[in-house]
């Protein structure tokens, strides 16, 4: 009964947050539309299909990069935990800190240029031809997913290290800690995903957003921003519900 009550409270809180989010977006859209010189008057309902059409591509890139980041991040944290000397731990901390401080747009664009030189132009976009081929699609996905994973690895490693350092004081679940950290940082990850899409010609929400901003289409741009915010909120609610119903044991959040 208590769990059900907690779940209902979580959902109601999320509904109020969603209402505030909508109100903020409405104000932003009205203000942006009043400044816009564009004659194309997209209403919010008319841009929804356009935005939703691009969503699967973005989710694919986001999901694959998260899986990669989890695999690499867990591996690195495991190696650092098993290493007896302090050098491995310091090296890992240094790399994590360096990755957090590099301007991501610079990293993505330099990687794009290097990939174009050493791998070839074919890696841009989602496929080489109109005919779908899984291997070709995965080959196109590999480089952007790796670049986007570079941004998420520090989050995973730091969450795991924080869990390990606190495990003496409190019982904490690494899975919950990592998911917590990723959920809190999801807006940053999506922002990085937009940049990756732009750099590698991935036809997702990021490219749509930049095209909308450059074409002076404020409703389309705020529509994309609203969609990503709603996705973040839904994911956080799902995570809180999973934690409140003990599907995932509660971890300690520390970024």
């Amino acid at each position, binding site marked *: 009964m208590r769990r059900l009550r907690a779940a209902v409270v979580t959902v109601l809180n999320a509904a109020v947050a969603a209402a505030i989010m909508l109100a903020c977006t409405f104000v*932003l859209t009205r203000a942006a539309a009043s*400044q816009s010189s564009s004659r194309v008057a997209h209403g919010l309902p008319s841009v929804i299909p356009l935005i939703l059409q691009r969503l699967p591509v973005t989710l694919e890139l986001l999901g694959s990069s998260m899986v990669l980041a989890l695999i690499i991040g867990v591996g690195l944290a495991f190696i650092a935990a098993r290493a007896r000397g302090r050098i491995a731990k310091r090296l890992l901390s240094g790399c994590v800190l360096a990755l957090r*401080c*590099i*301007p991501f747009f*610079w990293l993505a664009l330099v990687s794009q240029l290097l990939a174009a030189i050493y791998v070839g132009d074919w890696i841009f976009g989602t496929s080489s031809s109109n005919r779908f081929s899984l291997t070709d699609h995965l080959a196109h996905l590999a480089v952007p997913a790796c670049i986007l994973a570079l941004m998420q690895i520090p989050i995973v490693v730091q969450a795991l290290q924080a869990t390990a350092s606190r495990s003496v004081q409190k019982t904490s679940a690494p899975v919950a800690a990592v998911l917590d950290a990723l959920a809190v940082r999801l807006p940053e990850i999506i922002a990085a995903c937009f940049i990756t899409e732009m750099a590698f010609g991935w036809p997702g929400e990021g490219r749509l957003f930049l095209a909308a*901003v450059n074409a002076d289409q404020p409703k389309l*741009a*705020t529509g994309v921003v609203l969609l990503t915010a709603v996705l973040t909120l839904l994911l956080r609610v799902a995570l809180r519900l999973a934690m409140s119903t003990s599907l995932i044991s509660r971890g300690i959040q520390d970024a």
Partner: protein
Amino acid sequence: MRKRAIATVSLAGAVIAAIFAGASLLGNYANTTDNLHWTGKPLPPCFVNATTCGGHILGTDAVGRDVLARLIVGARTSLGMSLVGTVCELTMLGLLILATRRGNSAIRFAIGRFTDAISCFTAWPVTIVAASISFGEGSLARLGTIGLLAGVLMGARAVGFGIETSLTPRLVSRVVRDWSTILLMLATVDFFGFGVAPPMLSWGNMLADLQANLQLAWWAAVFPAACLFIAALLIQLGGRATLSDLNCW
């Protein structure tokens, strides 16, 4: 441990302050449009080729402007703007702490839901949309809007991190570290051409021609990014050391 933390904070703070002060003092004298040595192609940095650098220590960009002078002027804008954002974040967190302590349960509920909602927005896309609203305004008003928005977004995110609503070492450390996040976020906005607009300089808008510069003059594409990286690294180290330092007291 405490001495080491204090030393790190002092060093990081001193370097950042020196960059900022140096940029402020030298910025007025730096000639960012000088292309007297323009030979039709960019000049390399002196450490690459001392005979052809023409006295330009870090070389010139694709149109013959001195990279070092531009970096000095850009430092003032980039560090200043991000500092404005950090002050806005600190102010917002201060107000939230005050409202949470003094307010009733309804106010606490409203603050909780507001931060829940705002922390879901992606930072630079929202800032770009907000910047496009104030395109008609003067550049100072637009930059003020961007700084304020960056502060509000980061403040909401800091609350999302589960920071206690009191002035704890963790909060201070978080705000110091958020300075580097704001610096990188504003650089992204400038890079896309929606923040600091030419002829004003920032490290972000110096990278706007990144792809062309990488092929013509790699130094013009690497040094602004290196400045951003070093500044962000120093701020992060300072924030971490602040936490250990304050925890020692």
